[in-house]
């Protein structure tokens, strides 16, 4: 049993750890790095509670070896808020009562963010299929889908505002 030394980036921070060759990323995050936001619901990639991104790709942390993330960029639910400001998805989940027990919530948030990063204006069907890898047993998904729709709307407004602002700046500069 000899450990693998891994250097990686987690939520923007440089992180080093030593793990067993057969140890999965989820266990590394939870037991070695101290990030328990990703949960183990099944350990077989069927529930999505451990969803994180690796190099901006959505994955189940239970089906990635810790050793595989050498030199990569990992993002977990703990990396979603920027300082004191929640991501729109996080605030809309609270506002729309999109969680009950909350065990699946970190996974849903990470998956929904991956969706909106790729497709800022998804249809209800696209949301439902994009979130099909995340199981929720409390909500019947109704309020989750509505929260994602609301977050998409808010992000679109933010994006328009930002675009206008930078356009104004550009006009000023050229003037």
């Amino acid at each position, binding site marked *: *049993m000899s450990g693998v030394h891994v250097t990686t980036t987690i939520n923007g921070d440089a992180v080093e750890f030593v793990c*067993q060759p057969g140890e999965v990323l989820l266990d590394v995050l*939870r037991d070695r790095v101290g*990030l*328990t*936001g*990703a*949960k*183990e*619901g*099944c*350990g*077989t990639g*069927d*529930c999505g*509670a451990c969803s994180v991104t690796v190099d901006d790709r959505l994955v189940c942390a239970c089906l990635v070896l810790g050793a595989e993330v050498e030199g990569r960029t990992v993002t*977990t*639910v*703990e990396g*979603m*808020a920027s300082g004191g400001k*929640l991501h729109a998805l*996080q*605030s809309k*989940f*609270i*506002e*729309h*009562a999109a*969680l*009950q*027990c*909350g*065990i*699946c*919530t*970190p996974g849903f*948030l990470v998956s929904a963010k991956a969706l909106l990063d790729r497709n800022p204006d998804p249809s*209800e*069907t696209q*949301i*439902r*299929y994009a*979130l*099909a*890898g*995340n*199981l*929720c*047993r*409390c*909500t*019947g*998904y*109704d*309020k*989750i*889908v*509505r929260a994602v729709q609301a977050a998409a709307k808010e992000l679109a407004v933010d994006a328009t505002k930002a675009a206008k602002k930078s356009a104004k700046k550009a006009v000023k500069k050229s003037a």
Partner: protein
Amino acid sequence: MTTDPSFTNQTFKIIGTRVPRPDGLDKVTGRARYGADASAAGQLVGLILRSPHAHAQIKKIDISKAEKLPGVKAIITSDDLPDLVKGKRDMLDILENCMARGRALYDGHAVAAVAAIDAETARQALKLIKVEYKVLPHVTDVDEAMQDNAPVVQSWVRTTGNPESNKPTNVCQVSQFGHGDIEAGFAEADVIIERSYKTEQTHQGYIEPHACLASVGPDGQGELWVTTQGHYTFRTQCAQLLGMDIAKLKVTSSEIGGGFGGKTHVWMEPIALALSRKANRPVKLVLTREEVFRGTGPTCSTSIDVKIGAKRDGRITGALAVLRYQDGAFPGIWGMLGGMTAWACYDLPNVKAIAYDVLVNRPKVAAYRAPSAPMAAFAVESTMDLVAHQIGMDPVDFRLLNAAKEGTRASYGPTYGPIGIRATLEAVKNHPQMKAKLGPNQGRGMACGFWFNFGGQTCATINIGVDGTVNVSVGTVDVGGSRASLSLIAAEELGVSYESVKCTIADTASLGHNDTTEGSRGTFSSGMAIIFAARNAVNELRARAAKTWDIPVEEVEWKDGQACAIGMQHNNLEPLSLAKIAAKSPRTGGPIAGHNETVADGAGVSFASHICDVEVDPETGATKVLRYTVIQDAGKAIHPDYVEGQFQGAAAQGIGWALNEEYVYGKDGRLQNPGFLDYRIPVCSDLPFIDTKILEIPNPGHPYGIRGVGETSIVPPLAAIGNAVSNAVGVRMNHVPMSPPRILKAIKAQRAAG
């Protein structure tokens, strides 16, 4: 999503508003700590060895090799868990379920456990434990288990109830409910329909596996961090089973990642404590998903016969149900609950339910959301549609004509007070979904459901801080957002803002006993205790104001969150707010608190009616739910978002049960699908938005009119979908889940029959 408050005549200031939940931020940032999220310095990893056989005598367990493995700190078998409950059967059953005592009774039954310095060592140790089994004949089907020649699961079991029997059997009890003369009722009927149904076993499917962190020292003191619906119940059970003093075992409930009844009694927690005691180190024990399916408590599979007789005008004259529920390998009351709930929606002159509780070689059955009611409702509500069809009546009108009302004698005994079944049916009749057009291979169905709801032992404390903010401590675990609802109740009663209240789930050392959060009792009973505690605190606040003003307390009244002096002689006294009184509390008598200890009786029964549109692919038997509406009586919706959430979640579980979820056992008695891959709970793309309508028919047994809301809506979906499938493609499904192979087979059989 609508709320109809027209039945309520109370007015509230903040009850009924949709405030953000207090635990929301922790849960969206990953900070909330669940069962597996705690660690202790020096902790060991606990793992459990489980029987691969459905039924086997354990001839020998050799732990000598495993014990010698470096890093192994403790190994236990049933030898380490002597009977300290002096044969008290229900507790001994729990202990025997935690760890087999001489016989493995089902596939997945724990036989030994190990604690080691890390997971890898613990895994190796499990492999080194050698168990010698003698495989015994097994039975997993409820009807087969009732046969005379069936293998007997528990040799000590005799049939109790009515009728009793004194020979070894798998039938542990027979319960009968009902009134009137059933034979006379059928003799009177113009139409009689009789059908048999089967439902397969399902699991609650909470996403968080059972997990705990146990620590017991040689001084007999211990702590347990655990995901549970009832930490006080867990404390009592663990202390009794392990011979500990209740006061010396502190149990803290973690955030709970779903329970639905599955976390109402102990499974592996006594094992973790016993390992910790033996090793004298903290032990963390987390089940895998496979262990959750094989080794915790799903609900029953059933076999049910229903007979309904009715007059041409639609009046039901006779109703009979014979229900056979398997309880797993230990006696339970699940068949009995099926018998009690089967006919509860209707006003019946002649009604009978005969319920059998039967043992099989499957895991010990646990409660699952309105336990036992969905299967009985599937059988009854499917037959109701058949009768309506036979006499040419609209199924909603047929149900309305026979629906129970205030003054109806319930089939399970008592007479109903004000209830909501008719209101839900009227709401169904007027719902736009009932008039929406359907396409080819589409069908609409509806069904009703009933659940009791409970109260029970409850304790709550309110402490008012010097800045006027309020701590509320309760002992009912928050499974689905109850801290928000309970904060609303405290704020309403004290007349303060929601934001100034902080609600905490206290550990067992900080508050008196509270019954488990089950039977939809959390908001009902803790809400009641908080109201009384708040009223006690208000009395104290009035006394402090009186002291401040130096007037008799009788001349101080509490109004809108402040103390007001009554009468002409005090009219120049400015009212004192809660915050002002609190600020002065150090000098008026010290901290201000209010507490209440009660048995919250008076829970009100609740009813739901659901409407469901489906489309069936006649070539594959696949069913898609197109539209779904839940209409339920909530008493009073404290936080409508979370009431809707309960309705929607319950409906989704019922839909999964109706269409796809089932335990599949092989001929060898082993569970074939212990994982989320093949135990198929609904995914997001399987479901439509689930519309809800909250009816508020107040429960006279609660100061705010609250009824439990958590469970009832899992009851109607099985039959609502069965009825919709029947209306879509003309086949009557009598076996749940109505999986594609079963529906396709029925369609083919019908085609063959012409």
